[in-house]
């Protein structure tokens, strides 16, 4: 599996691409957190703490996947 293009391993290119995509996904998760804050500041419906927690769990999962990709690939 040492496919080389101009002396660069194709898997290294794919690894960098995956890391860039996951990094962008982390930004997206932060936007989701911002969205949840916007919802909870607009509406007080009695379920604010659980959805805020869901947002942070989602962010933690994204961080975990990014770190896993960084270490394993």
């Amino acid at each position: 599996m040492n496919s080389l293009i101009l002396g660069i391993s194709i898997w290294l290119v794919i690894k960098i691409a995956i890391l860039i995509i996951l990094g962008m996904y982390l930004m997206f998760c932060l936007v989701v957190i911002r969205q949840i804050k916007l919802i909870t500041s607009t509406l007080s419906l009695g379920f604010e703490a659980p959805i805020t927690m869901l947002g942070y769990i989602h962010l933690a999962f994204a961080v975990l996947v990014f770190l896993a990709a960084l270490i394993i690939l």
Partner: protein
Amino acid sequence: MTYQGSIQPPKIWSFLESCYNRVMPDVFVSEPQEKVPAPTSISPIESQNSLGSFRLYPEDIDFETKQKEEKVIIFMRAHPITNIKWILVTILLIFVPVVAKSFGILSSLPAGFELIINLAWYLIIATYALESFLGWYSNVYFITNLRVIDVDFYSLIYKQVSDANIDKIQDVTYNTGGVARALFNYGNVFIQTAAEVSEFDFLAVPNPAKVAKIIEDLITKGKQK
């Protein structure tokens, strides 16, 4: 005044009490409160659960533009059964990596790539489920004693709050077409107004007939005043 228990007050006391009532007029007598009939039966949809779709006179609900004298009569969001689509899609998507593995689709990748692709897949599913849930949770409708309010959150960080005074409402219609809607008693309520926002669409809300009736009652009561 009523007395309970085995010890009875002396008769002189009741005599004095009747004299007092005759001599002293009442300083303040409150006007009889208009009572709104409570729902005869409360289904799980109508419960005071914070994830409920239809709540009558919710006490613990607040929103950004709520005024001090404003009382929420009905709080609504889409019927929970409307979530079934994204829940089923999520469950199906969870099994995609298992199916892919059984067909050996990712087996040609180097070690580690398969794990990361699977994790990324589950991350995408989690986002899809979270966004779908937030879309259902945050698009809500209020009917208060003063206004009808529609709160919508579009895409990620765009929100729209529309409201119209009760006296600006011109027409209320509702529909409940389809098997699922008839079975679970939900449908759309359309409110035509003379306000800046000319139409309010309360989509897939439980008890549309009851909602329309309550709005019509509020309009009638407003006209009588």
